[in-house]
């Protein structure tokens, strides 16, 4: 399961509301916030696809200005892919090479 460390920025006056809201999102642990509008959060997700979805959700929240990623650990996922337990989704329709 990938684990990511993030600094999420909000308008200072909205920081505690946003932090409370984040705390309610599955997989998100809020570790603290400050008067400058910084929120320190860790996101843990089943796959990095789901982590990305979670980041999107946070980016879409009112008053969130920036989601800064600082750390990502994805060893489990890489191991699973190597063992064939996880096949990364391939969202494209396969197509023969189109001739010029």
């Amino acid at each position, binding site marked *: *399961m990938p684990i990511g460390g993030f600094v999420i920025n909000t308008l200072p006056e909205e920081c505690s509301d946003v932090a409370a809201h984040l705390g309610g999102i599955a997989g998100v*642990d809020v570790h*603290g916030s400050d008067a400058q509008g910084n929120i320190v959060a860790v996101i843990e997700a089943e796959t990095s696809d789901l982590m990305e979805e979670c980041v*999107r959700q946070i980016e879409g929240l009112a008053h969130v200005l*920036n989601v800064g990623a600082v750390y990502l650990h994805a060893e489990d996922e890489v191991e699973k892919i190597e063992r064939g337990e996880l096949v990364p989704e391939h969202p494209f329709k396969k197509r023969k090479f189109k001739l010029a």
Partner: protein
Amino acid sequence: MSLSRRDFIKRSAALTAASYVGMNLPFGQHNVAHAVDADKWVRGTCRLCGVGCRLELGVKNGRPVALRGVPEARTNYGYLCMKGMLFYKMMQHPERLKKPLYRERKNQPFKEISWDEALDIAAKKFAESVRKYGNDSTAYYGSGQCQTEETYIFQKVMRGGLKTNNVEGNPRLCMASAVGGYMTSFGADEPIGGYANIERSYCMFIIGSNMAEAHPVFFRRVMRQKLDNPDKVKIINADPRISATSRIADMHMQFRPGTDMALMNAMAYVIIDEGLHDEKFINNYAVFKVGKDGKELDLDGFKQSISEYTPEKAAKICGGNITPEDIRKAARWFATSQGSLSMWCMGINQRKQGVWANNLIHNLHILTGQLCKPGADSLSLTGQPNACGGVREGGGLCHILPAHRPVANEKMRHEVEDLWGIPRNRIPPKPGYHTMAMFEAVNEKKIRAIWINCTSPAQSLPNVTPYRKGMQSDDVFMVCTDIFPTKTTECANLILPTAFHFEKTGVYGCTERRSQLTTKAIDAPGEAMPEVWIVREWALRLAKELNDPVIKKCVEPFLDKEPDYELPQAVWDEYTQKLTKGQDNDLRGATYDVLKQMKDGVQWPAPTKEFALTGGTVMKFVRGSDPLAEKRAKNDKPYQFYGHAHPDHKLWVWSRPYVGADEEPDADYPLYLSTGRIIDHWHTTSMTGRVPELLRANPYSFVEINPRDASRMGIKPNDMVEIESRRGKVEMPAKVMEGPMEGMLFAYWHDMHEDRMINKVCHDAYDPGSKEPEFKICACRARRISGPKALKPYLTQLNE
């Protein structure tokens, strides 16, 4: 993984994030220090924009397992964006090109061949082209994503070996106007300052840049400066489109596309009219110029030349929401702040008047003395990670030799020939084809053999359809070096698989004159090889084919070097120790050993190792900061503008009249069309499209439409819309939003699907000086063609 170790990793992630903002958490680092037991952490630079964020790739058992920012790096202070965090997924991607592929004719399927065969074919075909059609029938088209070593060695073989200046690169499409602006205003390319000014700036003028999406980590610094000083710092965002960047602005000036020159001339008018200019700075360091021949004016003459740009008149020209009072207020904020910092990107550069628009930004700085002091700078943001370092500095454009030497300058040409140890007059005196002319020459069969490296012109050129004809023709032999199939590899005869970032070693030079080393961390998949090796081996065969020992001479210093470190190091050493010596981008101090020690690289000029180890020159032209300012001083003034393009060592304030877009809306095509980036994707999506997380967020292009236009045209969110210009048409779903101003569409350009490829619609008119095309503005019409449609994302595949 045990629960406790997992817990440790989570704590480590939290502590890392907390350390960035100085927050104390109830658990300490000592508990988690060993949580992540990567075999090694390899330092490098992100390759997905021009900011130059430093990061470390955690490698275990030869594969990437973790990524972290480098907190001490003065570019990003450890922050990264998700695009940067996920780039490692491209490394082991199943669609990576792993074997050389060849087909004689372009209607045949590709067959796997050996490297020996591939290099022989490439050499034979280029030699054949030289023998039959002359040296200028060959060309190289590179990229701002190539490492400096790659651009340097390619251009050396082309110019010194194949005797042609047909050396170009995609930075022509994004940065050439910024080069022209810096050269004509400041006398030297690249910015005077850098990112360090952000935290010292009290007025930030952001024009033609959506940095929140195109440069998110850089934007974070701008945002932080504003939020930490909400009353002291003013942010002016000038753009026809309201974007994510506008959220932190005190004032958003939404002007009609192409009227920015009227806006900036009006700001200059207010500055002079209200006596806000810095007379002492102007007297010491500036002259005024007008016209093609650069006739000199005095301040009164300049004032007279912009007298028609009253705020009232400019507000009328600009349209949108701009009032005369806004222009006055913006000019006053700019002129009177402790330090004013302008930042712009493609909205200014990708214009028929791109150089002039750049000049007008610089004018504001020169007039007010907002240069060379803390917080003051005129900073062009670069889109690609090595447009500055590799292409602008390394000799990657048709008119410049390495280290900012113009091709047309005989003395400098001979200097380069002597340094390379090749006969004089080997490098032709005439610049080669610039990008648009190059692909026109391909169409006209003047170019018969072309090498395209790490870029996809078959998708990225404006008005792309007619330019594909030549690339698709069997009369033109085309080699592509890349990591994935692209729209351009579809036109190739020979595809050579290359090592990706962190699979090879090399230097990137970011926006702020900063060179940073990325060392190899993992092996490239299959038989993919670094470009420096490919060029060396190709040149040796080419020398035999053409029986020309000078071609071999070009790569002789690099023989017998292993390709992962020694070879790029030897290329870097030659470039920095010989070619940059005594030039304004003197990088002699920035050896691989020094760059490896530095967490964030070196800003040039850095002539000695001792100086490079301090980080180099933070503020160019300033005595005490820039060693060349002292060395080349002509007087005792604190600033020395020694750039070689201005023999008078002065800054030039240019009188440039407002000129609109090349193609304005009319009765047939009543709307403006502009295009741009979104946060998740990079250029043509050949890379980010293959990271499912990034693709899912934006699986295909959208077109943003102002709600009032949408209502008039009966378009609802997600309806399919046809966008048509005089050159072509595409269809894509609509986003109805208060983004683009009324009368304007804004389309994302990251889509390989033929039906949605917006560059088929864009205009290929280009700036007469910089030759950079006007991607950002053309006239179009739009209509609703259906309700929402289920669309599939599309990427070119190279199947069996």
